[in-house]
């Protein structure tokens, strides 16, 4: 079988391009070496913003960002949640009474784009207003200006793009790594892939190979016999177990860089850092300095922050466009599509680099336009009008809860993730009433949702389930759900006891990467219990060779 397009990478760009190509009628196959949204996409702040930072230098980018934010709200209404932000002005800021005027003027201009993305116009807050809104904020804050943005679950965004692509005929293969290219002369004719779970190797032919591998894209470009440089930037977020503030707060770090503190789902995020990174992309660890940098910034605005519980850290590498002579924060989140036929004389190979989550759809559209031009396809892009699979309507949570006799809160969380597909998912309860049971009590996640993710969304490991359902991301960080989740996967995939053990160890290791660097204070109590559960009570480390 000859595909029109083989996409490498299951991040938001890869899945976005796969969807667009499939919707335009192309035969699409996508390969992801681990899991959808397991690289840069899964480590991002999770915002669909209007691009306020480009306003002063590049108004058109702000316009396009705001426009696209509006589109994404239309195609995925269930996944978007509004996050009002404030930018506080501290008395230490240079001439604070003037600074706040400048800020307000800036956001007055940004307000012009608010209707495009259903944002509310800015409000100027006095010291008293700010204190009433956020009692934890420092007494040094003399006032603030608000603006309006939207948050999103980036994992769900990827999964829904992939599901949509599949609904339009695309083949999605996760845990499948592209090991080399099939070439004819210098031209690319396809890829040789390896299934990382079964070890099976096979060749897949395609007219165009689209390299959307994020931070791994230079490696793939190298395999294809060319070179694409990026400026890899490591970003770290701290994740707290509860909402510290009601709304997002824009703060400055010690070096003046902008950082967000914001509620996200039932957790709280502080981030991000931005540092050049040249280490192992497949083994990212967070340092003490990175944690302390973020904590100090937060403490400057929110003095009580160290009393809260940091559950874990999250980190990823931005595939920022290459630039020499700029410090990290000055690098724009621009993107570029490299046509290797035009640039290096390699036919059949494209690379997409740079960009940001909020403009994924626009970038996918541009990339697909390039692909279509090469393949002579004239069908127009419809990804801005056609809802994602769960985006057709918002279900009635109360009605669903009554119909399936399930806790309304659990339904509400499921409905956030699955939108108009919620009823189909809950239908699994009719197949087996025990599908009501909770696998993860923190989020909570029902067995039904875990099964649904395994059957319909390519979940093969517990981290895969975590990305699709938020299983294991709550305050117990996998203490209660790890083994339960392994057994659901075991049942669905027909695994033996070794397979189930491997799943458990895999998830414990994956969580540990996020937890270990930030282990302090209250989280240590949880971790003492967590290790005691998995090491001592379950004697995982003593199951036991003959």
């Amino acid at each position, binding site marked *: 079988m000859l595909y029109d397009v083989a996409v490498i990478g299951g991040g938001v760009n890869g899945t976005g391009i796969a969807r667009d190509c499939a919707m335009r009628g192309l035969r699409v196959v996508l390969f992801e070496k681990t899991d959808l949204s397991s690289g840069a996409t899964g480590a991002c702040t999770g915002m669909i913003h209007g691009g306020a930072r480009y306003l002063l230098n590049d108004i058109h980018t702000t316009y396009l960002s705001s426009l696209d934010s509006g589109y994404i709200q239309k195609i995925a209404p269930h996944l978007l949640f509004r996050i009002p932000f404030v930018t506080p002005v501290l008395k230490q800021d240079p001439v604070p009474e003037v600074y706040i005027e400048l800020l307000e003027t800036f956001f007055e201009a940004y307000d012009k784009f608010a209707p495009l993305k259903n944002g509310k116009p800015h409000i100027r807050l006095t010291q008293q207003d700010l204190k009433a809104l956020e009692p934890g904020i420092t007494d040094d804050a003399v006032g603030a200006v608000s603006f309006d943005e939207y948050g999103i679950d980036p994992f769900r965004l990827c999964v829904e793009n992939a599901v949509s692509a599949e609904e339009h005929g695309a083949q999605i293969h996760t845990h499948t790594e592209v090991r080399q290219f099939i070439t004819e002369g210098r031209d690319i004719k396809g890829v040789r892939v390896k299934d990382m779970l079964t070890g099976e190797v096979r060749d897949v032919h395609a007219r165009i190979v689209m390299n959307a591998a994020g931070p791994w894209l230079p490696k793939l470009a190298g395999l294809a016999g060319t070179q694409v440089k990026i400026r890899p930037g490591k970003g770290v977020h701290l994740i707290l177990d509860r909402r510290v503030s009601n709304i997002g707060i824009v703060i400055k770090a010690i070096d003046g860089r902008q950082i967000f503190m914001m509620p996200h789902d039932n957790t709280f995020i502080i981030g991000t850092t931005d540092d050049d990174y040249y280490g192992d992309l497949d083994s990212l*660890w967070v340092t*003490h300095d990175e944690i302390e940098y973020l904590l100090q910034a937060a403490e400057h605005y929110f003095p009580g922050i160290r009393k809260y519980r940091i559950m874990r850290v999250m980190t990823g590498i931005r595939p920022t466009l290459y630039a020499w002579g700029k410090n990290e924060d000055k690098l724009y989140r621009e993107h570029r599509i490299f046509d290797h036929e035009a640039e290096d004389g390699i036919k059949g190979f494209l690379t997409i680099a740079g960009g940001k989550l909020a403009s994924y759809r626009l970038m996918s559209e541009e990339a697909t336009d390039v692909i279509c031009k090469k393949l002579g396809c004239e069908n127009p892009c419809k990804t801005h009008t056609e809802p994602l699979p769960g985006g057709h309507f918002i279900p009635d949570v109360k009605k669903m809860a009554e119909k399936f006799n399930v806790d309304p809160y659990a339904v509400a969380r499921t409905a956030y993730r699955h939108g108009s597909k919620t009823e189909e998912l809950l239908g699994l309860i009719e197949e087996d*009433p*025990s599908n*009501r*049971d*909770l*696998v993860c*009590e923190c989020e909570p996640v029902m*067995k039904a949702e875990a099964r649904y993710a395994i059957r319909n969304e390519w979940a093969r490991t517990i981290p895969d389930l975590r990305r699709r359902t938020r299983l294991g991301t709550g305050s117990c960080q996998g*203490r*209660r759900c790890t*083994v*339960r989740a392994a*057994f*659901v996967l*075991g*049942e669905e995939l027909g695994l*033996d*006891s*070794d397979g*189930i053990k491997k799943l458990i*160890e895999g998830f*414990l*290791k994956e*969580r*540990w*990467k996020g937890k*270990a*660097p*930030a*282990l*302090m*204070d209250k989280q*240590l*109590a949880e*971790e*003492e*219990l967590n*290790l*005691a*559960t*998995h*090491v*001592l*009570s*379950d*004697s*995982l*480390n*003593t*199951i*036991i*060779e*003959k």
Partner: protein
Amino acid sequence: MDYDVIVIGSGLAGVAAAINAAKTKKVAVIRKGYGATALCSGTFDIAGRTGKRGRPFKDFVSIPQGIGHILENEKQHPYSILSMAFTGDRFNEFITMVNTIGEEFFERLRETGIHYKGSWENNMLLPTQHGAFKATSFCQSSMFPGNLAKLMGRTILFIGFEKTPIHNRTRAEFLRDILSKYGFLSFKDVLYINVDIQSLGLRWNGHDFISLAGIMDDMDNARRIAASIREIVDKQDYDHIFIQPVMGIKNYEDVSKLFSDTFGDALSELVADSPSAPGLRLQYALDRMLAQHGVAVIDGEASCSESPDTIKTVGVSHKDGSKSTFAANSFILATGKFISNGLTKNKTWQESIFGLPAFIGDQPVKDAFAMKYLTDDPLDEQALFSMGVKVDNSLRPVDEDGAVVYKNLYAAGSVLSGYNYIYDKTGMGTALLTGSKAGIFSAG
């Protein structure tokens, strides 16, 4: 003087200390709540290091062998520190001490209504609700399945409860698979049957076994559930029955008797995740033990007052906001590790009440960044969790130079450094021994 001895903490170590001191002294326990003991699985590990993954069970089955390994190789371990007092055959004298203190304590526990079964010679394997095993030395009699080897080639019956989230059927198969694969035991058959709690007219949330154990505290409910299990198992051919640990909490003595009257030795409880009913049973039994031995319980959070080398008083902040001060001749610190906030980080790590320096191994903890004491694999032994105060041979905390910090302060249980209960399987044994000895030392 309000008391002769004040113990801070009412987990296993604190209670062992209190009742030993109370043999001759007037004793009070100050506590702010329950900690790791209440959260435990209700089993007692004495020795039998787990070590690296994949080690055969036979390597850690012998308890004396496990203790011998510690005395020989782990100089910082509280077992080794306690053994320093012996001048003759350290190993044999230590083993004698373990048995004497342990037997006496289990006798005291029996007086509170909990009967522990097990052995000082060999660890046993108990099946867990996860379908794995826990190797341990003693367990509550209702959890004791007897010698699993006797069940070779027999039929095992798992009883689940309606709406349980733990995939009993798969777990039962998993257990069978593991057992036969790793060559301990192979069962003839493993069956799985559910009891429908709702059809008995009882309200239960369907996944919390502690709440089901609480429902069973009512003897009427317990009788109904036992009868329902009886009815199911009578139709089956089985050799042994495992159920979730739900035989009551506060009324465990009566409920477990009802089950042993109904099923004899053929039914036992699985080891559960924390928190579990057996852990709470143990904690409540310890509470009763304090009362039986005339130990006063003061509820509140302890704090120290300025004292150069001898502690005279501790302050207590009560839940209602009031404060009081208690004087004593000796004090015992049994505040636990991280779960109960016995250790905190204040720039660097320290013990929470007296500000004693924290140690990992022989070294004071200087670095606040935990990764220094962790590896990249959570199933490795993590040094961070062996953090605690360092003590001399009389269990008195010492500073970085090895000097005793307070002449009349003793420490016991998981606030101690030098061992890692998550990995070394001496958790309850260390709490019991150091607690008992601290109680004896403090009484002079």
